[in-house]
């Protein structure tokens, strides 16, 4: 905004440096590289194009793109992928617009009109054909799945289960908005109103940023991150404008016997009182906002998720340190080159704390590979053993919450493993419907589907669980998360042997047995 206001190269270069910092930290920079061209386009459409915008945008685009291509993950994407094409297009449009303005000042009106129309027509035809050829031959790659699902939210649900399974990718509810923002949701329209009242170049940027980020935050919960700065800015604009207008009405001068009557505005009764009321109201809102924020941070955003705690029946606190226990066991008791197979949620944790090689991690970069792991988890032991030999796995790790009542365990995530496993060619034999009862329910007790009761994930989670009493008054093998007694107890494992189970059975590690010495 500063570079747009001043039109100086210095601020534009600083802006490009800040953009480079953003590119190197998060993939969400794509939003920025589309928002800034959109802003320039809006300014062009409302007739506010000037040499300052021209200087600012050209400098930012050139320097910013060259800097962003230094990051190896981005590489040549800015000239190849559709997500960056808008910036390139607006850059070309900028040059043309400035050139047209220059020519217009030199030519006479008649000549100019002819030249203008013919060039516009030719330019439009050329650029359209280039774009069409580029997309058709594949030189310009189409929108990647992650960003396409922002434009069409049902795309991920129907086509790419991995993207749909991440809980932060779900659309946002009103309570998520209110929980994170409280008062800001009410001040946001007020701030927008004040911006629309006084339209300037900078205000238009804020309006566009606000509107686009509200839409994107509505599509995906984790994009609330992108919404937060602009919410604060717009609410700040709202609060300050309100206070501005009302502070002027405050009259704190002493009561003077000789106050002239003509100062009193008869159409505005109680001017002073109303102004005091408004100022007081806004202050009260701001104070309650701080209370809300501190409460939310202490309750929801402060607890680490690697060490869990719960309240026991008598009020004392129980600490579940099972994750670290298991990872350190892996670190100290397995060979250095051991390979661990687990679901991708735990990839980074295992790499960092157990220092062992894993197959898939949170980057979820290779969909086919993750799908293979999903197929292994969802198949019977023999089929899974083939996959595990193929992937050269030594240990398998699962998270099980049935003893403690921890509900984010692998059985609850299992349906996603089935969906992702069945989404590639080699997993076509895995169908989600096989894992439900004939009535369509997902059950782990005796009524559960036999495919589910014999798959690898089930056996790994519930091995030896059939002998354990978990809750008073309930039979052995009672799963406290699904609230049911498990259907398949007292089975043995053929291809795995149990290596380690943590204190509260949260993490279970199994060793993959080697092939038999003699052929079967």
């Amino acid at each position: 905004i500063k570079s747009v206001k001043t039109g100086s190269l210095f601020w534009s270069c600083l802006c490009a440096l800040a953009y480079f910092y953003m590119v190197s930290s998060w993939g969400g920079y794509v939003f920025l590289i589309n928002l800034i061209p959109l802003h320039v386009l809006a300014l062009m459409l409302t007739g506010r194009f000037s040499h300052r915008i021209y200087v600012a945008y050209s400098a930012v685009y050139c320097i910013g793109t060259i800097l962003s291509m230094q990051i190896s993950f981005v590489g040549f994407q800015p000239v190849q992928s559709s997500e960056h094409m808008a910036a390139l297009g607006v850059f070309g449009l900028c040059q043309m617009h400035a050139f047209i303005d220059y020519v217009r000042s030199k030519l006479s009106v008649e000549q100019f009109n002819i030249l203008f129309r013919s060039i516009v027509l030719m330019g439009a035809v050329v650029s359209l054909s280039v774009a069409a050829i580029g997309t058709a031959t594949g030189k310009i790659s189409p929108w990647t799945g992650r960003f396409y699902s922002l434009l069409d939210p049902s795309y991920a649900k129907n086509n790419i289960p991995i993207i749909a399974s991440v809980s932060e990718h779900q659309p946002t509810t009103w309570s998520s908005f209110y929980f994170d923002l409280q008062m800001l949701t009410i001040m946001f329209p007020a701030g927008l109103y004040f911006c629309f009242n006084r339209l300037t170049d900078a205000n238009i940027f804020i309006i566009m940023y606000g509107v686009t980020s509200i839409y994107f935050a509505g599509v995906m919960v984790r994009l609330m991150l992108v919404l937060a700065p602009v919410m604060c800015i717009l609410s700040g604009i709202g609060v300050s404008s309100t206070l501005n207008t009302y502070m002027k009405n405050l009259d704190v001068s002493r009561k003077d016997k000789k106050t002239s009557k003509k100062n009193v505005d008869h159409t505005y009764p109680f001017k002073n009182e109303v102004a005091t009321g408004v100022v007081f109201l806004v202050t009260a809102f701001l104070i309650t906002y701080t209370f809300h924020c501190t409460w939310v941070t202490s309750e929801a955003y402060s607890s680490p998720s690697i060490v869990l705690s719960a309240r026991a029946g008598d009020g004392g606190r129980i600490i579940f340190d099972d994750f670290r226990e298991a990872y350190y066991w892996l670190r100290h008791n397995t060979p250095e080159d051991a390979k661990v197979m687990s679901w991708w949620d735990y990839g980074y944790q295992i790499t960092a704390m157990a220092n062992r090689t894993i197959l898939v991690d949170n980057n979820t970069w290779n969909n086919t590979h993750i799908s293979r792991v999903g197929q292994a988890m969802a198949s019977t032991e023999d089929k899974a053993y083939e996959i595990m030999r193929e992937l050269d796995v030594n240990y398998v790790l699962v998270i099980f919450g049935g003893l403690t009542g921890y509900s984010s365990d692998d059985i609850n995530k299992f349906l996603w493993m089935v969906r992702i496993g069945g989404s590639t060619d080699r997993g076509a034999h895995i169908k989600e419907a096989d894992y439900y009862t004939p009535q369509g329910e997902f059950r782990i007790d005796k009524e559960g589907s036999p495919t589910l009761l014999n798959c690898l994930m089930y056996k790994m989670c519930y091995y030896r669980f059939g002998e354990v009493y978990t809750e008073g008054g309930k039979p052995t093998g009672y799963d406290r998360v699904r609230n049911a007694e498990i259907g398949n107890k007292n089975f043995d494992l053929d291809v795995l042997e149990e290596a380690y189970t943590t204190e509260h059975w949260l993490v279970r590690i199994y060793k993959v047995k080697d092939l038999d010495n003699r052929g079967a």
Partner: protein
Amino acid sequence: MEAIFSIPFTVLEVPNLKLKRPGWVKQPSAMVMFSMVLFSYFLVTGGIIYDVIVEPPSIGSTTDERGNSKPVAFMPYRVNGQYIMEGLASSFLFTIGGLGFVILDRTNHSMPRLNRILLISVGFISILISFFMCRVFMRMKLPGYLMA
């Protein structure tokens, strides 16, 4: 040069079109844009995208001890789930609160006395109602809200 350009036109005939941009199409004013943005804000914060993807029922229901089913307005204990009606009701409150501030700003222009009194009171009431109702809604959803 002219001779080369006129070759196609010995075969083709230029149609006699008279195209004109219709007069009623013009750039919308700022306030019209603002009202469209406000309407989209109402829809988005009501969780309409969540409704379209997840398709929750419009009102939930529970059965009590005697087997009668009672309607449940708010999906309890979860911040990341909602019913359609509760989403629309809350976003309505957000918008009313925002409009309250807009009204309060408008009252500073010149206008007759009665209008001014009425508008100030409407503005105040809408802001207060929206703020406190939102707190109540949140407490109904998360019973432990703002209590340690």
